[in-house]
């Protein structure tokens, strides 16, 4: 049992949970949350892959990749949320 193994499995589990949610969740916000979980799972995997047994320093490239990934996902999330908000406004108005 080493940290990389534990967190790697954690990441895979989180990804799978997110995947299940993304496929099944109906609520728009919840689906987005599920996708966020997926992205965290992927992040875990990369960070774990970069890990080296201390005192060796970890590989910085995957770290940079994860940071990039985080920013990319937040951008996508923001757009999706804007769509959700706009859609809700339109739908609620039409229901009246």
């Amino acid at each position, binding site marked *: 049992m080493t940290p990389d193994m*534990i967190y790697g499995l954690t990441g895979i589990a989180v990804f799978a949970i997110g995947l299940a949610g993304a496929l099944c969740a109906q*609520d728009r916000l*919840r689906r987005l949350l599920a996708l966020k979980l997926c992205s965290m799972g992927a992040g875990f995997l990369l960070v774990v892959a970069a890990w080296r047994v201390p005192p060796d320093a970890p590989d910085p490239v995957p*770290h940079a990749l994860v940071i990039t990934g985080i*920013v990319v996902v937040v951008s996508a999330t923001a757009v999706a949320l804007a769509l959700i908000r706009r859609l809700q406004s339109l739908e609620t108005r039409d229901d009246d």
Partner: protein
Amino acid sequence: MTDPLVIFDLLLGLSIVALALAVLSVRDLFAAIVLFVIFGLLSALAWVRLSAPDVALAEAAIGTGVTGALLLKTLHHLRYVTGTLDRPEAMNLTPVTPVPMPVLWVNAAFCGLIALGLAVAFLEAPKVGPGFDALVAEAMPASGVDHPVTAVLLNFRAYDTLMEVVVLLAAVIAVWQVERGLSEAPAPHLGEVWQGFARLALPAIVVVGTYLLWVGAEAPGGAFQGGAVLASVGLLLLLSRFYVPQPAHRGIARLAFVLGTGVFSAVALLVSGGGRVAFEYPLEHAKTLILLIEGLVTISIAVTLAALFHGREPVALGEEERRNDT
């Protein structure tokens, strides 16, 4: 079991998985978002444990902080629009068709299988894989900065980073395109204590953000983390209504969104020539250029994230449109 910290790792891993499950299974959306924020923070903690402080910082600031704020704001909007602000729980805000139980089980089994396969593949993989360690170590002296992650982000793989800023730009353009108008679900009035706190916190946050940006050259931190922290200034300003976006400010906002991308790409292009290719900074100016890019990118990121939080393009709508808008 040589390392006693393994117990800590196990506990943390388990609680992260449990939180992930909870995020999807708890009925109240508000609770789900809060749980998600906790999940994000614990993940950041795990990444610190995996000696990835930069990633942890970015995750805490952007992946959890900004995202959480975005989610809560949207939730508030949805509740306002549907007129369910006074209900104790936030549920079924968007149209939901119930999924039959068997489908859920099949889906869960399917994803479980995938997880199993991935886990097997993961465990099969070499414990300490080959990597870029040696290459990075070799190239560090020529990078112009001392912190490897920053070197990767802004020199070795600067192209990626530029495109990442482009993604942010695309996002803010898309968001402005989708939403517009001044009216908005009114922000709750937060009282004097909050105002006082905001006054106290704002300058401190600015200092911290700038520090994070500056320190990025040699230690964990950098444009994205700094930008996210600075973005929280924007969030505070917007939330406390110290600043209300006006149509007239759109020009300057556009400039701020574009600033980082523009300078980054311009520098990348301008340094080329005379045998050098794009992104190839001359070594003697590398640090200066990287700091210049980082600084401006930070501003862009901060403004962009704040704009993403605010959401709509501040346009004065016509009477007809306003009625159609909330």
